[in-house]
């Protein structure tokens, strides 16, 4: 049928794995409530499959053969690859949507040379969002990856084109499709500086996202992003692709810089879905 929901959310492993270390419990629970509302909105949309545009962390792809973009067309997936006790998410199987994903991939390929994969192990980058958005792991998932880890990285304008292609693909199938993008904004994860964020930069980025200001969103150079938003900032590609898929502005439903133990500004937003081309 079409795209019925588009949003973004954070995915940092601490969100589940370090929940018990949080000092600001009220803020944490406010964040969890915002994620729960996002789940309710996706359920209310009638989505038959959830496309997760993620930035994985070497669970499947490595520099021996790194795709800029990849779409999962598998029947089922498993995760997390991390120690379940560390992430505090049990190992589980997640249903895929092989037929639908193949049709969507074929449509994406008209404009973007995406890779595809029938095997995919989920890391925290997908498992944390699913833990909140489909806690029974019963909604068919189409995992999508944009390489945000191993430079050379795909340019932002190509991430935009990829998002547009995902939208065209969603509109080309009879099923109802929800899309979420998941990444950090500024952060320095997995370094001794974990917990460091650039709140002003985050707010500026979210302002550009919420106004659907394409030119401003695509104007960041990787050098600037690395300097101002850390290596974790490269994950803005997932938000940018999701904005392009939605084709409209977004409402930032939750944002906080007050949970440094989660290593990122925790964010939840929902896009307005404008008519596709």
């Amino acid at each position: 049928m079409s795209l019925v929901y588009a949003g973004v959310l954070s995915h940092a492993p601490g969100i589940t794995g370090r929940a018990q270390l949080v000092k600001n419990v009220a803020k944490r629970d406010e964040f969890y409530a915002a994620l729960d509302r996002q789940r309710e909105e996706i359920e209310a949309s009638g989505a038959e499959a959830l496309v997760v545009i993620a930035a994985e962390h070497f669970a499947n792809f490595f520099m021996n053969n790194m795709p800029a973009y990849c779409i999962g067309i598998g029947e089922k997936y498993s995760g997390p690859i991390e120690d379940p006790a560390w992430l505090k998410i049990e190992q589980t199987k997640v249903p895929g949507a092989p037929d639908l994903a193949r049709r969507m991939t074929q449509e994406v390929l008209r404009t973007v040379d995406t890779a595809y994969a029938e095997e995919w192990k989920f890391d925290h980058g997908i498992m944390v969002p699913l833990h909140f958005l489909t806690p029974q792991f019963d909604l068919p998932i189409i995992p999508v990856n944009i390489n945000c880890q191993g430079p050379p990285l795909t340019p932002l304008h190509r991430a935009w084109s990829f998002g547009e292609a995902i939208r065209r693909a969603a509109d080309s199938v009879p099923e109802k499709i929800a899309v979420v993008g998941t990444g950090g904004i500024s952060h320095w994860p997995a370094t001794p500086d974990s917990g460091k964020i650039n709140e002003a930069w985050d707010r500026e980025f979210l302002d550009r996202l919420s106004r659907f200001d394409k030119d401003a969103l695509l104007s960041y150079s990787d050098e600037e992003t690395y300097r101002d938003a850390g290596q974790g900032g490269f994950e803005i590609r997932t938000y940018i692709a999701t904005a392009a898929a939605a084709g409209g502005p977004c409402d930032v439903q939750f944002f906080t810089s007050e949970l440094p133990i989660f290593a990122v500004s925790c964010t939840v937003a929902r896009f307005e879905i404008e008519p596709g081309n």
Partner: protein
Amino acid sequence: MSLYYLQKILYELNRDESTQKAFRQDPADVLYKYELTDEERGAIEDGDIGLLYVLGVNGQILMHYAAFLGIEWFDYLDLMRAGVDRHGPVRAGIYAMTGDGNTFTPEGADKNGENRK
């Protein structure tokens, strides 16, 4: 310098249960397949998070490896700081320490507090 293979070992180890089992029994059974310097080999054999960090192992790969080794969160951050103290700045990659080694997580500031146990 074979950072690529150093990271590839950890990538395989992080995602593959049979590699994990073999590594737990005898790291040599896994490491012999890869060309490594003595320093790199020693860092993996010793589970030396600080040295692996300084050698430039991607932070996400290293974080998952630290979880595999069962290292607690704040200890893991401290081990990376100690690595920089001992071996100097991160030599490669995009996961350099940008602060002066201070903590950005107040939850971890109290070294003897509840959170450290």
